[in-house]
């Protein structure tokens, strides 16, 4: 059975504009994986958050950029 659960309210992003909540969670996930390796379970929290917050098109675009080494963020 599916549990109704989504990205919680984050006091860093209290405004109507939550573009950064999505972006920051995406970057945090990749930083976490870089530091802890891909099998580290707690990293998946960030993945859950950015999947809930980011439009799928954005995630696809960023994934392509990471694959081709053109992602502008610091990971």
């Amino acid at each position, binding site marked *: *059975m*599916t*549990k*109704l*659960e*989504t*990205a*919680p*309210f984050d006091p860093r992003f*209290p405004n*109507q*504009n*939550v*573009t950064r*909540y*999505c972006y920051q969670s995406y970057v945090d996930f990749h930083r976490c994986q870089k530091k802890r390796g891909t099998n580290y379970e707690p990293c998946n929290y960030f993945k859950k958050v950015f*999947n*809930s*917050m*980011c*439009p*799928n*098109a954005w995630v696809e675009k960023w994934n392509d950029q990471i694959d081709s080494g053109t992602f502008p963020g610091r990971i």
Partner: protein
Amino acid sequence: MSTWANLGLQDSSSPLMEQLIFFHDHALMILVMITVLVGYLMFTLFFNKYVNRYLLHGQTIEIIWTILPAIILLFIAFPSLRLLYLLDEINEPSVTLKAIGHQWYWSYEYSDFNNVEFDSYMIPTNELPVDGFRLLDVDNRVVLPMNSQIRILVTAADVIHSWTVPALGVKVDGTPGRLNQTNFLINRPGLFYGQCSEICGANHSFMPIVIESIPVNYFIKWISKNNS
């Protein structure tokens, strides 16, 4: 939804819309009282025969008619501010829905559990069933659980759109490259209609929004069934 000859607000289906309606009625009450009072004063001043040749100023009445409107304005300003902050409040949401505006349709994504995404196009008039609503019904409705806090994230892929559902008191602009968040709770089951509210091109009038509000357990069934 708005039906024939409906000039006022639609019936509310969320606690915030309830508050908005209360505020609208409250402000209109004050406006009517002022209009009646000023109308009465103007009427009696125009149609009497009294003349006061020495009237230049009246200190007392001027103080009264300056202070009194200021106090009346406070009675509108404070409830207005209260409501403004109430609308901005983000409660712990249980579902996140992403609405993306395109020229000219809305697409929706639910990515909390499994990934469900679909486009929602208006049904053209020649394909409309006899019981359909012209320019308002869509092929794929947004299904949402009732009595739960819902976070809606609005963005756009090309130009600015605006995601609006009057019965829920929601209107958020969808801007390319930006995510706008708002919150609402639907307090009854049913269908709620809205339309894009930012002039976005030739078919701006033909990208309606339909929400289907259903009990939570049915929503969970629906979301598990539509896993893409």
